[in-house]
């Protein structure tokens, strides 16, 4: 299973090593709504989870993506 950082980087088409935890919709123009949907779909596929709509809308930064996935891992 790819790490979360690699997954985000592959969707946002950036180098994984360059991604900071605070990077997201505020710092990257490429982080748009369609890429969020694509990211949501890939997270669901790789982590075998189904994200609620509210959580899809929360995928706005690397840190927030990590928080959302962690919450599903715990439940």
């Amino acid at each position, binding site marked *: 299973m790819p790490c979360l950082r690699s997954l985000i980087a592959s969707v946002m088409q950036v180098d994984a090593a360059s991604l900071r935890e605070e990077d997201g919709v505020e710092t990257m123009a490429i982080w748009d709504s369609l890429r969020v*949907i*694509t990211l949501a779909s*890939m997270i669901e596929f790789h982590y075998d989870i*189904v994200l609620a709509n509210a959580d899809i809308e929360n995928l706005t930064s690397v840190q927030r993506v990590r928080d959302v996935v962690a919450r599903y891992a715990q439940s």
Partner: protein
Amino acid sequence: MLNPEDIAKEVATLRQRLAGPKLTLADVTACGQAANRLAEAAEAAAQPVERIALAGDTTLDLLAQAVACALLQEGMLARIFVAPIGTGTQQILDSGSDLHAFRPGMVLLVPDWRSAIAPLPTDSMAAAAAADAAQIDMYRSLWGTLTARRYRVLQQTLVPPPWTLRGVADRRSPASVVRRVEALNEALIDASDGQVTWLEADRMAAQVGLHAWSAPRFHHAAKLGFDPRFLVDYLPWFRGAWRAATGRAKKVLVVDLDDTLWGGTIGDLGVDAVALGPAHGAAGEAFASWQDYLAMLGRRGVILAVCSKNAPEHALAGFDHPHAALRRDDFASCVCSWDDKATGLRRIAAELSLGVDALVFADDNPAETALVRQVLPEVETVDLGVDPAQFVQRLEAGHWFDLQALTEADLHRRAAYAGRRLALETRTSTADLSSYLSGLQMAGRLDPALVKDLPRIAQLELKTNQFNLTTRRYSQAELATFAAREDRLLLTFSLRDRFANHGLTAAIVAAAEGDTLRIDSWVMSCRIFSRSAEQFIIVRLAELARSRGIGTLIGEYAPTARNDVVADLYPRLGFSPSGSGGLWLRPLDRPLDDLACWIAVESDPATHLDSNG
């Protein structure tokens, strides 16, 4: 700005990534965006680029990336226009719209059941029929507008919602959404009458699972029609529909023998010990089932061939196995030798008078398919793997032989090729060409096209690359228009010989213009090359022209990369060049006895050769 060499290198890199064994959604989105950038650069460098417009009821931006990837896999770059969600009808009907300004060569319509199926009172058949009729009228109007501009039209079938409301009761309720989606799909396919190439989104969704496909959360979040993870699955479906729409559907399935049609090596085991049939357990059952499937493909017009590294006497004995569903006669060509598979495939293509790009090669040995991909990249390959129970799924995954409609020609192709093979065997034992052609006892007819001939003529127009003088690619709708015009002749040529009835194998569209009859389109099946059919057609056409008081035949040749076989056709038929522009003429005030022909006129209309062969 990228130069053509840079573009080609980047395209090759993307195609390599898209050829990987485990494509991901990230691959599709990344390659799709890169492909769009390259298509813009290619167009700026005056390179040929497809132009495709997408219009529908859902967000199509991700689908556009998948379409770009699918076309890259087909070796094409594409500029893609996406109509804003829900504006497709307006964009198509408004001649000044951005869609028309984009000048697409093809339009993909992506309807959604939420827009197509209006809620109705339970079990109101009349209201359901009226609502569906309104949808059909609307689409007829859209198709007519698009085809009048010579845009090719692709359309996805409606995918039903994943819920069922009341279970079996809804299956029995004519006004239920599920029943109406099914009925509307069938009605639209019928109504499209050759104008539209269909992409079976409903079948695709059923294969991956309707609940997984529909993923309502993505529709709520971004008006997506399906879970974007299935964009990877979408690629082969789109490619199959695109190939059907552009005349690139594959024609020949070439299979290996050992561990492909039966389990084991027949040269070592002998015919009785290979795994085929119930006595050999699950594997034997699976191979028998696979042979049944291939036999059905053959009966539906896919040309079957064998390419095997084997001694012929051992290899072909497998067809005598009591559980073999396939016999030698089911195969139009059998190449059994110790040559490499690429050499064998070239021989098969030459024997069948087809290009290698018409072939799909299926083998259990990945080393063999890898060699073919390297040496003959035009041949599509299928790695069957080691489990025969998966062979059907692995072959079907490529949608290589998907057809929009079966014609009589498809249903009789196997017999026609068997007859052709017998005729060619006769040729090798005949001293000279004249004796060989006489011995075939050929009879033919050149007749005005009937309505039932139109699908077959449209098939020939779309798929014929070699004997195609002007490559006009007339659609079925356009051919129907010609058939109704006084100043147009739409003619069909049918042929039989003592081995087979080859059926409708050539078609002509001719335009009566004053004292001349211009051959606007002339297509002929490669199966009947070198039989003097061209001479027969010109002699009969001249008779028709004279009966209408016409004094000159005009032929036109427009060269393409594939039709150089007919570059000298008109000079061979006694035509003289007429200025520039590829025109040739033959006055009809002189006899045509220079055109030697070995085909008698089939005189009895009752034996008019139907659209078969």
